[in-house]
C-alpha cells in the first residue's frame, strides 16, 4: 500500500477537467407531521430544504453539521432510499429523482451506503461471508465458488482475515464490524459510496484505521465518496471539498483548505472555532465564538435566514429574506447576506468579513 504520492493529488485538478458523477439540484425531503385524532397533515419536518451540489468523480465531498441538520436524510435521499419531496438527482448521467423504486433496482449496484452503527446494520444471524455476499446473491448470477472467491477478495481488501468468514458479527469489534460493512458495500463494484458517520461509533485509535482504509480503497478503485460526519477534524483529513449544513440547508460549500482556513459563513466560522484543539498551546489562543441557544426545529424554521436566531452578525434583512445560495468565486458557495453583491436579493453590499486571520 504505497502512500499517495505528492505528484498529482486529486484536489489540484482543475474543476473543469473533472467529470461530475453526482449532480443534485434543489433537493427537498420533507417528512409530514400528522396530528390530531384524524391524523391530519399539520406541517412538515423540513429535514432537507433545497440543497444543490455536485460531486466530481474520484473525489470525497464531506458533509458536516450538527445533529439533526439533515446530513443523513440528505445522503439517504440522494440514494433515493426515500421518495423525495422535490428536486433532481443525476448520478452518472442518469436522472434518478423521479425513478420508481423498481426502476432504481438496476442502478443500486453503482451506489452504496456505509452506515454509522456497524452493529445495527449487520444481521446478527448471518455469517460474515453471508453478509458480504448478500448483494452478490441479489444482483449477480455468480456460482457458489465464484461468490466465495469474491468474498475472500473483499475481505482481503478491507483487511479482514479470511478465516473469519464463518463467524457471526457479534464476535467482532466495532472497527472490524465497520470493515464488514465496507466490504459489503464494495461487493458490487460501486462507483459512488455514501459513508454516513462511518467512524462515529469507533474509538479514536480505530477511527484512523477505518479512515485510512477508506482512502486506500478510493485510490485503488477510483471510488467517489460522500462522507457525512460531525467530526470536523476528520472531514478536514478525508474530504476534498466540504459542505456545511444548518437546519436543512447547505450554508457553505468550498474546497477543503479555503473552507477551513478562511470560512465565509458565520455558522462555519462558529462551528470551526468550537472544535477543541488537541494542543494546549493552540487551545489557549483559540478565539472561540460561543453561539447562544439551540438549533431551531426543522418543522418551524425561522423567517429569513435559518441561522438568524443564533448568528452573531445578524442584520435586519436576515430576519426577512432567506439568503440565496450562490457561487461567490469559482467553486466557493455561500448563503449569507454578508456575502451578497448588490442587487441579487435586494441586499446591500456589506463588507463585514473581518474575522479570520488576526490583523
Amino acid at each position, binding site marked *: 500500500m504505497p502512500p499517495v504520492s505528492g505528484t498529482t493529488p486529486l484536489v489540484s485538478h482543475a474543476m473543469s477537467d473533472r467529470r461530475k458523477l453526482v449532480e443534485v439540484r434543489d433537493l427537498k425531503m420533507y417528512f409530514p407531521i400528522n396530528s390530531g385524532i384524524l391524523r391530519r397533515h399539520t406541517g412538515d419536518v423540513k429535514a432537507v430544504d433545497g440543497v444543490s451540489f455536485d460531486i466530481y468523480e474520484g473525489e470525497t465531498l464531506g458533509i458536516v453539521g450538527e445533529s439533526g441538520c439533515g446530513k443523513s436524510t440528505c445522503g439517504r435521499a440522494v440514494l433515493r432510499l426515500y421518495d423525495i419531496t422535490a428536486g433532481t438527482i443525476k448520478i452518472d448521467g442518469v436522472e434518478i429523482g423521479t425513478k420508481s423504486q423498481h426502476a432504481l433496482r438496476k442502478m443500486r449496484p453503482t451506489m452504496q451506503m456505509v452506515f454509522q452503527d456497524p452493529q445495527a446494520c449487520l444481521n446478527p444471524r448471518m455469517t460474515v461471508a453471508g453478509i458480504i455476499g448478500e448483494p452478490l446473491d441479489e444482483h449477480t448470477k455468480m456460482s457458489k465458488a465464484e461468490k466465495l472467491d469474491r468474498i475472500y477478495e473483499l475481505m482481503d481488501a478491507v483487511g479482514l482475515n479470511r478465516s473469519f468468514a464463518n463467524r457471526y458479527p457479534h464476535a467482532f469489534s466495532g472497527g472490524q464490524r465497520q470493515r464488514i460493512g465496507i466490504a459489503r458495500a464494495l461487493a458490487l463494484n460501486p462507483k459512488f459510496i455514501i459513508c454516513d458517520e462511518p467512524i462515529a461509533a469507533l474509538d479514536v485509535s480505530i477511527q484512523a484505521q477505518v479512515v485510512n482504509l477508506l482512502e486506500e480503497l478510493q485510490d485503488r478503485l477510483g471510488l467517489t465518496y460522500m462522507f457525512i460526519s460531525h467530526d470536523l477534524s476528520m472531514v478536514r483529513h478525508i474530504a476534498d471539498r466540504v459542505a456545511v449544513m444548518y437546519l436543512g440547508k447547505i450554508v457553505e460549500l468550498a474546497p477543503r483548505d479555503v473552507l477551513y482556513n478562511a470560512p465565509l459563513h458565520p455558522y462555519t466560522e462558529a462551528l470551526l472555532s468550537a*472544535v477543541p484543539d488537541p494542543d494546549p498551546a493552540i487551545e489557549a489562543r483559540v478565539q472561540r465564538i460561543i453561539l447562544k441557544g439551540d438549533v431551531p426545529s426543522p418543522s418551524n424554521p425561522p423567517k429569513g435566514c435559518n441561522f438568524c436566531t443564533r448568528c452573531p452578525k445578524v442584520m435586519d434583512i436576515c430576519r426577512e429574506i432567506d439568503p440565496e445560495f450562490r457561487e461567490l468565486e469559482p467553486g466557493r458557495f455561500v448563503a449569507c447576506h454578508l456575502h451578497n453583491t448588490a442587487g441579487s436579493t435586494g441586499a446591500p453590499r456589506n463588507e463585514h468579513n473581518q474575522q479570520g486571520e488576526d490583523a
Partner: protein
Amino acid sequence: MPEIGQSVLQVQDLKTVFSTRAGDIHAVNSVSFSLQPGELLGVVGESGSGKSVTMMSLIGLLPMPPAEVRAGTVQFGGRDLLKLEQKQLQALRGRDIGFVFQDPMTSLNPVFTVGFQIMEPLRKHMGMDKSAARRRAVDLLELVGIPDAERRLRDFPHQFSGGMRQRVMIAIALACDPKVLIADEPTTALDVTIQAQILELVKDLRQKLGMSIIWITHDLGVIAGIADRVMVMYGGQVVEYGPVREVFANPAHPYTRALMTTVPSVRGERAPKLNVIEGQPPMLSQHPTACPFRARCTHAFERCARENPARYTVLEGHDAACFWDHTTGEPRNV
C-alpha cells in the same frame, strides 16, 4: 506516584473486577492518583479502558455483584471511602461529591419536574425548606446559563434540549456545593457548539466556586482546553499522568505518543496521512502480568511481555508506566 499532601482525594492501588458468566473482567488495575484543591484532572482513554469504572468504584456506584472492589484505598475528608457503609456513601454523594454522567436523558428522571430534581438534594442533604430550596434552584439554573429559570423549574426534562439537560445535570451536581465534581463524558453526546458552551461554563464556574473536578473524556482537545493535569488510561491502568502542558509537549508513554499523532486537528498543518495505532484494545480477562499495550506498541521488546511496567517519574510530577525511554529510544536501564 502521586504525592500525598493536602489533596482532596487520594486514590491508592484501586482494583475492581467484574465476575460475569463469560469470565472475569479486570476493569481497573492498581489505579492511583490524587486530586488537588481547585484543580481539574482530565481522564482520557479509549472505551473500555476503565475510566468510568474507576470513578464509580470511588463512590460506590457500581452494581455489586458483578463488580467487586478487590483492593485499594480512597482517602477523602480523613476517611477511606471504600470502608464506608452504603448509607454513609449515599449521604456523601450529591453533598460532598457531585457527579454528571454522559447521557442526561437517562440520568434525569422523566416523570419529575426539573425543579423537583434540583430541589430534592437541597432538602435532603442541606435541610433547606421548600422556599429556600426553590430560591437556590433558581440561582443554580441561572448559574448554568438557563434563561427564564423561575419558569423552567416547572418543566419536565423532555422539554429541554440535550445541551440544556446537561446544564441541568451540572446544576444538580453543584447544588450542595460539593468539594469534588466527577463528570463522566458530559459533553460526548453533544454537538460541538453546545460542547463549547458547556466548557465555557465549566471554566467560569471553576473561577467562581473553586471546587476540584475530575473530567472524563476521550477527546484530547477537551483535555487540552480545560484540564490542569491529565491521567491517561489504557487497559484498566494509568499509563501516564502529569501536568497537561508537560504531557502534551513531552509525552513519554508510547500509547500517549501514538494517540497524539492519530487525531487530526481543524487548525494548523494538515497531515497528508493519519498515523494509525494498529490492533485492538486488550481483553482484560485476567490480572495483568505484562504491559497491556504491548500487542500494539511499536517499541515493545521482550521484557514487556514478561512484566507489567510500574509507573516511573519522567519529570517531577509527571510519570509513565513503561520500560522504554522516549528520550533515548532505548529500553530504560532499570
